[in-house]
């Protein structure tokens, strides 16, 4: 007997023919990744989990509606994350929380003081806090690269900007994270 894993492009083809169950299977494959991406992207908002869930639903609804426009099913992941990006930034632009700036908040929060109190098991909490200190653009670059594993050129397509801009945002973010997390990580070892 030959087992063949159903691939995304098979499910996309089914969904395009109106097979809702095929689309649900596709959703089940991607919803956790998209949800976590959105959750971390809107993490500075008061109801970030509810916002992320709503955005996630809207993302998959728009993806379903626009599935016939997807030219290359092999690029589904980047296309899906582009929709998620647009949804998230639409929300972030519409209703920004208190004006914040990544650099300013970095200075205003005593990272080293936190580092001095840090235990290894608290590292993930520190990472969560460090990510919140980044600007939205910088945080998104980290999420797409570190947590979603996209290449620079794929990120450029998702964010609709040049590769040089992607690298600049990511490298600046890494410099900030390096300065915040290195002392913590060293202490955790």
């Amino acid at each position, binding site marked *: 007997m030959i087992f063949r894993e159903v691939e995304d492009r098979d499910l996309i083809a089914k969904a395009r023919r109106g097979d809702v169950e095929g689309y649900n299977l596709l959703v089940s494959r991607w919803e956790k990744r998209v*949800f976590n991406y959105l959750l971390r992207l809107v993490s500075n908002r008061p109801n970030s989990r509810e916002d992320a869930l709503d955005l996630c639903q809207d993302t998959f609804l728009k993806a379903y509606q626009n599935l016939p426009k997807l030219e290359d099913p092999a690029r589904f992941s980047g296309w899906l994350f582009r929709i998620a990006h647009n949804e998230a930034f639409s929300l972030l632009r519409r209703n920004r929380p208190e004006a914040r700036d990544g650099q300013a908040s970095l200075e205003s929060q005593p990272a080293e003081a936190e580092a001095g109190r840090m235990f290894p098991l608290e590292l993930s909490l520190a990472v969560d806090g460090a990510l919140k200190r980044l600007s939205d653009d910088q945080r998104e670059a980290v999420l797409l690269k570190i947590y979603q594993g996209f290449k620079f050129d794929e990120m450029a397509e998702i964010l609709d900007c040049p590769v040089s801009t992607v690298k600049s945002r990511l490298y600046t973010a890494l410099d900030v994270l390096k300065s915040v997390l290195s002392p913590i990580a060293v202490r955790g070892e």
Partner: protein
Amino acid sequence: MSCASYDWKGYALGEMDRAGRREAEAHAALCADCREELAAVRMALNALSTLRDEEIPRRIAFVSDKLFEPRWWQRLWNPNLAAACVIAAAVLVHAFARPAESPARVQAEINAAVNKAVAEVEVRHAEQTERILLLYDERFMNMYKTTAGLVRQ
């Protein structure tokens, strides 16, 4: 090359080609500052990797609706198939009609018949597509509103 010319973040992120990696590694073997920079980048990346994905609080699913689903002929519908059928019909007409008149005149009649048939199919197809899209949008939005309402409940 100076230390500043080595992209240690790109190296740690796997965005450097093989030749670039070899050159960077050779430099790092001799340069303590660059080794320290690379170690700091890796440490930050390792720290980032400790953050675990959260489970989605509510699974997302769309409901199936028979009215929303395309009918059997819509699933089979394919413009290329329709065009092939028209051409096949034209060939059959040409083969079995056995016209007594001149071949040029018969050909002209066949061409006219084919053109007419193709035009009719195209008009029908456009009308059907428009109806399907209207029905699709209406049913889908209804379904979404219903689903969203149920999910919120």
